């Protein structure tokens, strides 16, 4: 199968080749930037003792959400046997795998000592379980990765052999993955929520808001990807599927907005010292305003997308839908990325306001990791589409079939 899919991956249209070459080039740039960072240490990034997490952890946080979103498609398809979603699901799970690998890459990029990362491997290292939320996170992310690789692999492999996948095998797995996806969200939110030192994060709404925003951003990305796939391959995705996913996006985005309002109300109706971070994020403090353009891009985009998508007519219009999904995705990336991480550190524990500005190296590594994710996803998607379309099948069987014919 691997050999076949390798063969299949390396062949494709011209656009496909250009796309892959483009991604490879960015990955190489990313690797070069990472080598600089390895050489100089994390001082090559914009992070300091005052703002000690930046772009890497922001992207990590956001991508955990994207990874978990695949589950919104898994549930109806496998469990309720809603054939409609089946095509979207394989894509969704491929997306989850790519997003998880990106998450792990971002974590590694953020480490000060990547050469001693084995200290984290249970069995040979020392794991601070159950005290440390980061230890939990490592476990749940890897577990989720495992589940999301095995289920589609099983299904695809059966299809590859030309058989139907057994429900009794994959249904328990899918149910587990549904629960697990909620788990990775919550654990990642708890990572921040549990810190009494940072009032901006120490907020009970953080976890639920994580879920809502991820269930908007993830499926929005899936819609965009399905649109691209529909355009460039013969893989048939029905409009019905896309409509259903769009429904998920809308509901999640609406809940997300409600929670945003609730958060803003709490921070600004009766501001305390603990609201300073929110002030910094939305209005700037003492003339330090680095995040203003970002958050004031994110909020209107978020609202605009949610409002537009709420109207059935507009949502049914593919152009509006794709546009909204795109701006929603960007808005949530800003909001749940550095709109969430950076203000947690500003002002510092004693009120010092030191701003954070990512360096070129940091941006390079980040782009490189995104390119890696896109690369992995393209390969996974191409293989699964190939199998699903029946282009990629177990050879012997084909021969037998041709003989019989």
């Amino acid at each position, binding site marked *: 199968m691997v050999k076949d899919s390798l063969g299949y991956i390396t062949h494709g249209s011209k656009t496909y080749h250009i796309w892959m070459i483009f991604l490879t080039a960015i990955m190489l740039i990313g690797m070069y930037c990472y080598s600089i960072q390895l050489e100089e240490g994390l001082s090559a990034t914009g992070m300091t003792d005052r703002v000690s997490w930046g772009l890497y952890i922001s992207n990590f946080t956001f991508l955990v959400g994207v990874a978990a979103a695949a589950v919104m498609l898994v549930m109806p398809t496998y469990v309720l046997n809603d054939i409609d979603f089946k095509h979207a699901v394989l894509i969704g799970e491929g997306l989850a795998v790519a997003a998880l690998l990106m998450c792990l890459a971002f974590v590694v990029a953020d480490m000060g000592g990547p050469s001693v990362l084995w200290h984290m491997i249970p069995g040979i290292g020392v794991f601070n379980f159950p005290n440390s939320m980061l230890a939990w996170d490592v476990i749940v992310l890897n577990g989720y990765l495992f589940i999301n690789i095995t289920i589609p692999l099983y299904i695809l492999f059966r299809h590859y052999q030309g058989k139907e996948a057994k429900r009794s095998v994959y249904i328990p797995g899918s149910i587990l993955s549904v629960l697990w996806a909620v788990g990775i969200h919550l654990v990642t939110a708890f990572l921040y929520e549990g810190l009494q030192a940072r009032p901006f994060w120490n907020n009970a709404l953080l976890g639920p808001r994580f879920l809502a925003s991820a269930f908007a951003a993830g499926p929005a990305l899936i819609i965009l990807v399905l649109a691209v796939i529909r355009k460039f391959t013969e893989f048939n995705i029905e409009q019905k599927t896309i409509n259903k996913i769009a429904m998920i996006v809308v509901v999640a985005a609406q809940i997300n907005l409600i929670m945003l309002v609730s958060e803003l109300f709490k921070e600004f109706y009766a501001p305390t010292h603990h609201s300073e971070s929110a002030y910094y994020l939305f209005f700037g403090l003492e003339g330090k305003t680095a995040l203003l353009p970002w958050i004031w891009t994110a909020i209107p985009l978020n609202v605009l997308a949610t409002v537009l998508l709420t109207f059935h007519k507009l949502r049914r219009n593919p152009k509006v839908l794709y546009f909204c999904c795109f701006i929603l995705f960007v808005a949530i990336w800003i909001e749940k990325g550095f709109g969430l991480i950076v203000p947690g550190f500003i002002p510092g*524990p*004693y009120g010092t306001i030191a701003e954070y500005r990512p360096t070129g190296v940091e941006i390079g590594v980040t782009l490189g990791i995104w390119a890696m994710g896109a690369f992995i996803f393209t390969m996974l998607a191409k293989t699964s589409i190939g199998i699903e379309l029946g282009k990629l099948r177990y050879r012997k069987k084909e021969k037998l079939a041709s003989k019989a014919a």
Partner: protein
Amino acid sequence: MSEKKKWFTLDLGFNKKVPTASSCGCGKTSGGCGSHEAPSPSKNEHAMTAEEFDKAVEGTMVDETRKDGFQQVFDVKMDRRTAFRKLTASLLVGAGAVQTSCSVIAGEESKEKAQIDWEEQFKGNYKLMTQEERDATVDRLVRSYQLRKKENIKMSATDASKDVLFGYAFNISKCQGYMDCVSACVEENNQDRNSQMQYIRIHEMKDGEGFKFNEADDNYYHEVPAEGHFYMGTQCFHCDDPPCVDVCPVQATWREEDGLVVIDYDWCIGCRYCMAACPYDGRRFNWSKPEVPEEEVNKNQHYLGNRMRKKGVMEKCTFCIQRSRAGKDPACVEACPTGARIFGNLLDPDSTIRWVLANKKVFRLKEDLGTEPKFWYFMD
């Protein structure tokens, strides 16, 4: 006053024998005050001797290794770490350390260096090491320094003494902002000179406005004491229920029996989660390779204290563990020309710090967070 009961009537030794007994003054037994729970797990671990622990760990590990086939490859009984070490050794032939150790031209010294580097790379967590392992790593570090810099250092690994709990008090009325403590600290603890890392921050605040940390200047370069200002120092407060310890994913940082919160620099993976969790800006990170001019290196070192760090690891104030465990005051206390800094054993009823706690109106920062810092402020 909860803290009074806690620090004046509490015998931690007693507490250790009967871990369920609650001697915290908050009146709760459920642990809601945040001072019951955290120490107990670490105590349980310490209660087990290091050898017992290793045996236990090895026992489970050998069982597991049987399954995964390391045995067939190497045909020796080994725990996972050894197996991992050997496996990587065979995989990473390209690694510099191996190359030099195999090279014929390389002299004895570089071979030894490579050997040391190799063993250092794969040593365990200091907290869980046996006494022999601890001695061995200290020897290796001393030897490595000798080989590289042709200088001798003295490195101790003194353990916590019984019936000692270190605490600190800071007299706000006395401090004039001279920052002699800061420079003494930098010199004593071999902090990176390039990034000008400082464990202590002195906050300059305006008279008559109270403790307004957000308006204070912790990075001033003018003559002190400045008219109409007062000064307040912060550093790691060695919390008794330290949030930084709970969050570390690999247990690279922990609370010692004498209350010091320490870091194993070689076990830290540099994730900086502890830094996000510290409410007191107590931690510092080595963003690049720390550099100290050879003639300025303090050669009197402690494994958990001021030994040389590498890039990408966390560090912080240790109450000068190399000094305090040798019966001396930390460098900042010694250097302060005004006598604003007081250090001592909280369990010794005759210590100065106990006197201060008993006779001054003391307070701590952010007590509402439940971290129980062992660092008090007071005024004359």
